[in-house]
């Protein structure tokens, strides 16, 4: 009996080894949660015979902590957002990207390139973008809503859900007041604070995880949320209208970057080049309706011109972040 058990354990262990060693290489990827469908990764593994070690994070700050605390060479490809790309470059944690190795980079729409966070795209190439929009449940609200200032209407008491992100929400208040989304002038911030205090009674909740749920359960009728989230809510409830605020909106772009000291550089290029194929991008955006920077028919209904003509990136504002944080504590 004992022998049988030992034998079974040995077989079990061996089978575990063999399935792991049939790949000819690996690539260590760290990406946002719910961002690339599993079958897209699987197809890459089958095609190139390269194993993808896929890890996830849920905020840029978590990514920064993981990259700066782990040994060089632990990760190959990561997907930081705009301002985090700038920060990672300044900390010397990324390496330059050789675009000659990415034949599919010709698919990228030029509008998405040369953004402020990496002026000549030496270190990054755009993967997916999204913007902040207003979602309104037209079943309950017929009013004309086009500006952030319309949210201050007393009728909407306890009826608005906002994403729980201090830079985006304070940025929204600054835009409503006619200032730059990244303004650090303390008088302008004071006005933004007053604006948010005026809005306070109308706010039902701050939620970044799943603001769409508030629409599905009809808990709130107005939401400030990421565009992809609003599109998913709209699939569930067709009465939701997506509105692009007249003052402009925050954009966020996540980017392909290669970590300094990456051990599997060639595999990293293969992986990025694979994701830049048009048909792969279509598969990804079909499942997660973000805006792809590739020249494909977007599932997302927002026009690329609109994204950039009225869009603003969250920028690194140095120590002024302390004033933002205090303001955030004040309005909560």
């Amino acid at each position, binding site marked *: 009996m004992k022998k049988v058990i030992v034998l079974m354990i040995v077989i079990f262990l061996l089978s575990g080894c063999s399935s792991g060693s049939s790949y000819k290489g690996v690539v260590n990827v760290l990406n946002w949660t719910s961002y690339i469908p599993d079958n897209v990764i699987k197809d890459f593994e089958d095609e190139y015979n390269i194993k993808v070690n896929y890890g996830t994070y849920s*905020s840029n*700050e*978590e990514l*920064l902590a993981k990259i700066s605390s782990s040994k060089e060479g632990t990760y190959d490809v990561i997907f930081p957002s705009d301002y985090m790309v700038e*920060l990672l470059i*300044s*900390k010397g944690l990324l390496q330059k990207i050789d675009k000659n190795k990415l034949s599919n980079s010709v698919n990228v729409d030029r509008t998405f390139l040369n953004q402020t966070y990496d002026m000549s795209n030496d270190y990054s190439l755009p993967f997916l973008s999204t913007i902040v929009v207003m979602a309104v449940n037209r079943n309950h609200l017929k009013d004309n809503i086009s500006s952030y200032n319309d949210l201050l209407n007393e009728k909407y008491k*306890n009826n608005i859900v906002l994403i*729980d*992100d*201090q*830079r985006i929400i304070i940025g929204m208040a600054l835009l409503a007041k006619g200032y730059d989304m990244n303004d650090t002038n303390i008088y302008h911030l004071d006005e933004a604070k007053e604006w948010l205090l005026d809005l306070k009674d109308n*706010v*039902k*909740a*701050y*939620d970044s995880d799943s603001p769409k749920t508030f629409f599905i*359960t*009809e*808990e709130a009728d107005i939401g400030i949320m990421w565009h992809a989230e609003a599109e998913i809510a709209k699939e569930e409830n067709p009465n939701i209208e997506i509105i692009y605020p007249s003052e402009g909106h925050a954009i966020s772009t996540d980017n392909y970057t290669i970590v300094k000291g990456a051990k599997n550089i060639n595999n990293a290029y293969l992986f990025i080049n694979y994701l830049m194929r048009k048909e792969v991008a279509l598969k990804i955006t079909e499942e997660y309706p973000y805006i792809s920077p590739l020249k494909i028919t977007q599932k997302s209904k927002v026009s690329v011109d609109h994204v950039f003509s009225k869009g603003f990136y969250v920028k*690194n504002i*140095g*120590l002024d*972040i*302390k004033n*933002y*944080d*205090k303001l*955030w*504590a*004040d309005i*909560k």
Partner: protein
Amino acid sequence: MKKNNLFKFICLTPVIVYAILLILLPLVYILFLSFCESDSYGGIIYHFTLSNYFTIFDITYVKIFLKSSLIALSSTFLCILISYPFSIFLRDKSEKTRNLMIKLVMVPFLTNSLIRTYGWIVLLRKTGIINSALINLNIIDHPLNLMYNNLGIVIGMTYTLLPFMILPVSSAVFKIDQSLIEAARDLGAGPISIFRKIIVPETISGVFNGSLMVFIPAIGYFFIADILGGGKAMIIGNLIKNQFLTARNWPLGSAISIFLIIVTFGLVQIYKKLGGKLDDLGGM
């Protein structure tokens, strides 16, 4: 004798190593960080400063401390209010019933607290079970706002931390000598004076013990404030979390954590002054 010591040493080593590596060292690191400055990119400048501790006393943060304390106090009070009748009711029951009931209190707590908190959303939201039931019974016309406000946070905290109050309070209530209560009855004391003059004084250390165990986590459980409070009320837990994540100001986050530890020590000292035994805090 010698053998016995060796055995003790072998048994204790893992615990000591664990405590030093995972509790003491991080605490020392946090204490150290709280005297540093932060740079604009969330890094740490190793330059001695007390400014983080002064920042805590900024009116903005003081307000958050007060609000957190109020929420935690309300939750503690509610826990006491629930624990007393429960314990007094169980006092007259058989040992078997008592054990069963205490086990029933504990069983839900084997599930992850985050999941249980999400469960409350189903009960409390506008179209949730409680509101639907009340509307269908014609008790109310409009749904009550049971969550996404401070009430939701207090409900969540009370629910999550209730066992920490029930266990010490019930064990204190069970220990009261039955003859004391009988004597009081013989002398003509009604239920209220029995409660006031016998049960309360006999169980006050259990209540204080439970209060510490409820109050302290209740100022820090940011996930309950986020889920049931709708992220609208910032409690100390959120404030600390924000310093480590969005604001990338680890030194300030550390200073607030240290401040919280000092407050906790202060409360334990008061507990000791009132005659409580430290053993009771850990030895349930």
